[in-house]
């Protein structure tokens, strides 16, 4: 009996909960596993803008969801990722990295209803007022995932942004995009509302400048931008509407270490509400 012919996957973008090809019709070739290749969508500037529209549309619903609900969905992402462990290993992601990525979802899932307590509270103002500070999501975050580790780096960029109610458009590792598209399948089955996470594959230099200059993007995470000159250009563009900027992370960064709060807090606004007390 002849060996079964495998069914190969088409790797597409993830925008607004759907898996479209690039509107430009372009793709690029990457190695898939040991002895096959895949054509991955080469996202255009238009795809990036479409992704911002999807992220903006998802924003108020996701930010308005209860923290409990967001935490459940992030935990569900961990469950889905755990179940697909072998699929990522087959793509060449080390098993340890998949496990760390799964654990990272779990870690961030638990933060959804604790961050407002850790980052907010009552301020003892000198007067008869109730004074409360609470963290709120910044809005739409455009992010560049590190080139490596492709899966853990991507999860480490997405999870801290969305746990507080932000929505993201993320440019995946250009050299290793298959894990990103497969992660999109994880998210699509984790009850994550459409548009909360949007994933672009392709060239950073092509998609990210339009995101950095986009007036409807609130924050720019340059984590994966290795070219210092490009990073500076992007940060300059981000100043146009004063996006919150996370500067690039050095290539030798240890993504397995405790992430701390910094990635979450950089994408939060603090709102302070005053109300008089009176009989």
């Amino acid at each position, binding site marked *: 009996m002849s060996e079964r012919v495998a069914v190969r996957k088409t790797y597409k973008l993830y925008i607004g909960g759907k898996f479209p090809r690039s509107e430009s019709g372009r793709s690029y070739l990457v190695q898939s596993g040991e002895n096959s290749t895949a054509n991955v969508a080469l996202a255009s500037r238009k795809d990036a803008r479409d992704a911002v529209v999807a992220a903006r549309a998802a924003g108020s619903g996701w930010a308005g969801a209860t923290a409990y609900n967001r935490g459940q969905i992030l935990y569900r992402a961990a469950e889905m990722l755990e179940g697909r462990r072998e699929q990522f290993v087959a793509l060449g992601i080390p098993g340890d990295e998949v496990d760390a990525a799964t654990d990272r979802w779990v870690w961030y899932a638990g933060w959804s209803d604790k961050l407002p307590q850790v980052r907010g509270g009552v301020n003892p103002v000198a007067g008869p007022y109730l004074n409360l500070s609470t963290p709120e999501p910044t809005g739409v975050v455009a992010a560049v995932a590190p080139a490596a580790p492709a899966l853990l780096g991507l999860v480490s960029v997405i999870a801290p942004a969305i746990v507080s109610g932000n929505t993201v458009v993320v440019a995946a590792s250009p050299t290793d995009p298959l894990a990103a598209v497969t992660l999109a399948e994880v998210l699509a089955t984790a009850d994550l509302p459409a548009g909360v996470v949007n994933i672009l594959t392709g060239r950073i230099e092509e998609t990210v400048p339009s995101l950095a200059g986009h007036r409807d993007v609130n924050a720019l995470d340059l984590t994966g931008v290795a070219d210092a000159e490009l990073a500076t250009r992007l940060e300059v563009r981000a100043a*146009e*509407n004063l996006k919150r900027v996370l500067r690039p992370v050095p290539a030798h960064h240890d993504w397995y270490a405790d992430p701390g709060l910094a990635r979450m*807090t950089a994408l939060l606004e603090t709102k302070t509400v005053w*109300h008089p007390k009176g009989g």
Partner: protein
Amino acid sequence: MFEYAPAPESRSVVRLQPAYGLFIDGEFVDPTDGDSFPSINPASEEVLAEVAAGGAGDVDRAVRAARTAYDRVWGPMPGRDRAKYLFRIARLIQERSRELAVLESLDNGKPIKESRDVDLPLVAAHFFYHAGWADKLDHAGFGPGPRPLGVAAQIIPWNFPLLMLAWKIAPALATGNTVVLKPAETTSLTALLFAEICQQADLPAGVVNIVTGAGGTGRALVEHRDVDKVAFTGSTEVGKAIARAVAGTDTRLTLELGGKAANIVFDDAPVDQAVEGIVNGIFFNQGHVCCAGSRLLLQESVADQVLAALKRRMTQLRVGDPLDKNTDIGAINSAAQLARISELADAGTAEGAQRWSPPCALPDRGFWFAPTIFTGVAQSHRIAREEIFGPVLSVLTFRTPAEAVEKANNTPYGLSAGVWTEKGSRMLWLADRLRAGVVWANTFNKFDPTAPFGGYQESGYGREGGRHGLEAYLNV
């Protein structure tokens, strides 16, 4: 209405020198590559003193002094000792508060009742609050041993000269940084008096450096390669330029910029209280307030009633001598600012809004602008979109809470907002939806060192005050 007799605060408590140098490394020094310029009283146009304009070389000298002080003295000093210096400064400010308040009103043009009852108490409170943090940073929630950044470059505006200085210097010093501060060129004098207070407190040389000057001095400071942190309060336009200037560097940045706050009045709000809040929101400090309630959103069903009460109240406002204790609205800070306010108000009329001011005699000399409201304002009008930074209120109306939210959020800014309603659930519903860093419900323009202040979107980033404000000066 009965007449008020003049009730001037004596200015004899202020002893000004004819000219001031730069405060660098604990001493007043002449600029080496700079110039000088007069600082005038905007209420009379009299020259108060000659102030040095620092050049790039002077800025460099100040940054080097701050670096040395950071490396050798202030950085290694235990927090409990830093705290004591800050407590000393707080006490000295309280002791000299009358002198500082009078000088603030002379140099800035704000009414003495505001500099005396609002600015100075808040300045002292800010130093007291942060003094207490200096030896408790391990417990501030940023993990053990949070480190200072180093040398902070701080640029402040002219609307609350001493209060903005306090907002910048107190947290920077409490967290172990040293500073180079540039006051606004029209309001340098209280910062220079503060330099004397640093001397009186025996604050180690170089921990606080004050380099006076205009935009060029500020640019030299922001672009200096040896500053670790830039903190700026001022216009959104300059804030963006600073964000571009520090792009690609390791310099940390916080920005406190413009605003176009909505003050939303619902039909169930107590009218007299709301009117007091509207007046406080836009006429406090001549409207020279980044978080001023400059867009009044009235629910249609009560718009006529509130407007009538507002106009009645505005006829009682006393405009004039800032040193008179009965003055409500003082002088516009500068001729340039007066020109900008006048230009935008003229644009309001040209675009079809209806302008109204109470009958109001303005002094012959100095810079003055009568309290003004515009009705019939559309969201597209410049006076509904641009920050006027003066005593000019744009009035719009709405029907439903959802429409109020939509109109309030229809701005690239996001610094503050006000809500007036007796219904608690509606207030909280609105507070959740307003994209603004500070929401005042049934009050307006309240400040406190424990309460974080700062904006969303193009109103800047970072917070000042509270535990949140410490983070801007710590490596966390």
